[in-house]
């Protein structure tokens, strides 16, 4: 199977989130490998593999959700977490949830079941 590759560099930040999701789904459906270079952490949730780099050096990389749970490492380099990841991690500290929820609907259903 042949993969095409596209690289985005900070061009998706001001595009409507719904349209970005549709774009990424289209790329996945058509086996197009895309690399999105961004400082928008929310867009990281739409990818399957995450590389964090700082001053041209790779700090960490791996499965997106695994990388995003390296909270202390990311914050040391001035990176914030996507809102749902940060919220889930804080709720875990309060023993209100036991995993990361990526969508508000599932989280709300669980908390106020």
């Amino acid at each position, binding site marked *: 199977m042949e993969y095409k590759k596209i690289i985005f560099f900070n061009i998706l930040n001001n595009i409507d989130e719904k349209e970005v999701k549709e774009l990424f789904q289209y790329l996945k459906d058509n086996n197009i490998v895309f690399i999105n270079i961004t400082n928008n952490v929310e867009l990281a949730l739409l990818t399957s593999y995450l590389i964090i780099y700082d001053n041209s050096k790779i700090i960490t990389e791996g499965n997106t959700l695994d990388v995003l749970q390296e909270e202390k490492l990311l914050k040391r380099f001035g990176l914030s977490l996507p809102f749902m990841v940060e919220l889930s991690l804080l709720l875990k500290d309060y023993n209100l949830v036991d995993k990361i929820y990526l969508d508000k609907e599932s989280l*709300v259903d669980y908390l106020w079941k």
Partner: protein
Amino acid sequence: MEIKDILNNYGVIGVISNYQNNLNKDKMVIELNINNLNNALKMVGLNDTFINKKVKDLSLSEQTKLDLATKLTNDIIIIGNLANTLNYKDLDFIKKLLLKLNKEYNKKIVVIDNKVDVFFNLTKKIIVLQNKTILYETEDYFDDNLYKYVRMPKIIEFIKYVNKDNKKLDNNIDIYELIKDIYRSVS
């Protein structure tokens, strides 16, 4: 009402609009005629190693800080595009600096951005500006009309979603207060 009238009543205002700095990219930092250059660079989180660098060779975050350094002696400081150029640590630092410039040096501050979160803990007064016309203004981050013009921050989206079912979370922009609120609500 014009922005200068609004500035009479507010020390810091947030403006939803596009912003581009006017730095001359081909000049070296030392050629930008910044007053008290070394101190200005230090104040914005840069240092004297930047003096002989060309603006175009600086990163986006360094250019944003430099942009601010060129304006420190202005009575009205207009700065923008912080969300797209600064990481959260740098953003926090610059916001504290802007508040200090307002409170201790009586500067009026205008922050221009396309992300409402940038204005959290900086100002409550938000203006939507397009083609030099004020389209909307508010002092309430939870004002639905504001989000006809700009994307709603995730924390506000979450609280509004929860409150649709009368679960009664307070209107918080601080995630730690939100957590306490959720804890109280579900316990």
